[in-house]
């Protein structure tokens, strides 16, 4: 009998890790991966609540989240590849053309 709060704490911690990863790392791939981590944390919370309320809607939503994140990764990685082609480097700090 694991309390629901345990799962939610884990979810929060993983989410925080993901946020930190997005902010600190300079490799766009790592940043992307951190985003996936965040999504996962959210999924975990969803499924935990599904179990708590005994409905299946949470799981359906997780299904969709996964689908969308797959699509997103595909496109995102394609973008990174394209950027690499022009910049020949994947340092995020170099992409500061919006500096004003």
């Amino acid at each position, binding site marked *: 009998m694991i309390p629901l709060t345990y799962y939610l704490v884990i979810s929060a911690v993983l989410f925080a890790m993901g946020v930190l990863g*997005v*902010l600190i790392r300079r490799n766009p791939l790592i940043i992307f991966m951190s985003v996936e981590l965040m999504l996962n944390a959210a999924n975990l919370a969803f499924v935990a609540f599904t179990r708590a309320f005994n409905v299946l809607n949470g799981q359906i939503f997780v299904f969709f989240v996964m689908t969308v994140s797959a699509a997103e990764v595909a496109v995102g990685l394609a973008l990174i590849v394209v950027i690499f082609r022009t910049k020949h480097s994947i340092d995020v700090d170099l*992409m500061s053309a919006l500096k*004003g």
Partner: protein
Amino acid sequence: MLLSEVSNTGFFHLVPLIVFFPVIGLLINIIFGGLMKEKVIGWLASAASGLAFVVSVLLAVALSGAHGEAQVIPFAEWIRIGTLNIPWNFRVDTLSVTMMLVVSGVGTLIHIYAIGYMHEDVRFKDDPGRFRRFFVFLNLFIAMMMILVSGDSYLMLFVGWEGVGLCSFLLIGFWYDKDTLGRPSFANAEAAKKAFVVNRIGDFGFILAALTMFWAFGSLQFGDVFGKAAEVAHAMPGVVIAITLFMLIGVTGKSAQIPLFVWLPDAMAGPTPVSALIHAATMVTAGVYLVARSAPLYTLVPQAQYIVALVGAVTALFAATIAVGQYDIKKVLAYSTISQLGFMVAAVGMGAFVAGMFHLVMHAFFKALLFLSAGSVILGLERGHHHLSHHEGHPSTTLRAGSEHEGKHEDAEPVEAFDPGDMRNMGGLRKQMPVTFWLYLIGTLALAGIFPLAGFWSKDEILADAQLHYPLVFILLTIAAFFTAFYMGRQIWMVFFGKARHDAAAHAEESKPIITVPLMVLAGLSILGGALNLPYLHTFTNWLGHTLGGEGAAAAEGAAHTVEAAPWYVLGGLNLAVAGLSTLLALVAIYLSWLIYGRKPLAAGQKDPLKKALGFIFTGMERKWFVDEIYWAAFVNRYVDLARFLADVIDGRFWHDWFHDKVLAGTYNWLSRIALDKVIDTRGIDAFFNGLGELTKRASASLRRLQNGFVRSYALAVLFGVVVILGYLLMK
């Protein structure tokens, strides 16, 4: 008469026409005068004046039908403020009708005379366009004089009083920019100004009288004032004395008595018809009329009466002495007018109102005659001068024995400096201008008081009354009468007898009938005028008695109706002793003048024989006893000094230079420059707004650093926002 059967009250309502006929005349002349010929303008103006005369006659007839009862014809409401009510009413009584007849009658004759006179004068002065203006002003004068004599209150009288003062100014200064010979000069304007200013001093006296009267009586209407006169005099005698003496100041101004007579001799600068009408016959008599009208007031204050009589008598003698030493033909007549006015003022001052009015009417006739004849003489000389310079091609010169001027030519100057009014240029005009000579002679004899001409009757009435109650006045007036005859004789001998002393006089021509015919009418009146108030008949006394009541009649009658039996030499009011004395003195005076001026006529350039005989006295007479010089030194220059002081020192240096420039402007400049500009504007307001700009710049510079283009920092910002919002939501 058919007229007397007509309803008399109907005629009284015609009275406003005496004012409005001349007004219509002048309006037509102003508006349409530019399109009309000279003759039309002149005759139109004369017709306006003539119609006023006709109305005056009708009023006289109606009045006699109404047994001389005074009629008050209301005309218009003028001032109505609270309890103060001063309407414009016309008063038709024997006194005002007398004045109306004189003004319009003599006025019409002078209008006709002026047609001919001005026709020549504007050509002599080379400005024909000014003809119309003269007749406009003349009609205006008649209108104003009519307002004066027909008013029913002191205020209406004053309106006319001021109006005639204005017309006098306008007419004296008619040739405001030319002198007698047409050369540019402002002497006439100066004379007009002097007349106006001196008159104003008199008007001030009149205003004081009117205000005091209003304060004491509560009204200015004749009826109200005279009705309450007795009780006010009983309660506050000082007030009535004050009123009458203030009025005397007005009289000395308008009627040219001491001390305000100085304007009249200068007023001769105006054209001769003006001198005749205004300064002999009518305007100057307004003062006499005023005193006669105020008879109920004057008879209550014998002290004031005595002062008035004395002023008149002294003036009469003073002016007569000056007339002896004058050389200008019109100046002699001017001083003569002042002297005769002195007679009139003395008469009404003594309470002999009828005598004064009688002399007023007679004087109007023969003084107008004399002035107009003098005008005719002047025109004759101007004609002669014109004749010479244009036909003979060389300028006329004075015929001096010594001939240093013979053959001397002026440089192409058409007008030589010669005065056509100077008696020293005249002489022998009896032959050149016979009609004028006879007319002038009639006028002279009338003025001198020779039986049976008009002046004899009127002057002797005055002397008779003076002799009864006021011995000092009698002596002064008698001596003045002596001088009167003397200077008039002197004038006759100098002008008409002997040999011409100037080329112009030698070639003088007689005047046209349009000039001489009105003179003949006046001469006829001068001869027959005495019939107005003959002894035993006393037509005029009775006529005026309706208005002036018992006082005028009693004084005029003299001793005839008093308790004592009349002395043997008083016949029906005529005092033979006095009459005989004055006639004798007049004849002696004329004989004296013949001895000096007639037996050995003056030659050209010769000095007046009296100069050697009387020395400095004659110089005094010649220089009018230095009155003008004294006035200038004592009053005018002191006033100019005061004005200059006020203007230069107080207004200029103190007020403008110091107060305005240093204090006000300086303070303001200091304030705006130092206080506001340097301190407040620069350091305060500028700093504030510049500071705002600086602040914005710095804020934006620092905020700009947020946009560093790094994705990570943008993400951080997002997280920051999330944290804040989450925190806020948690805190709620």
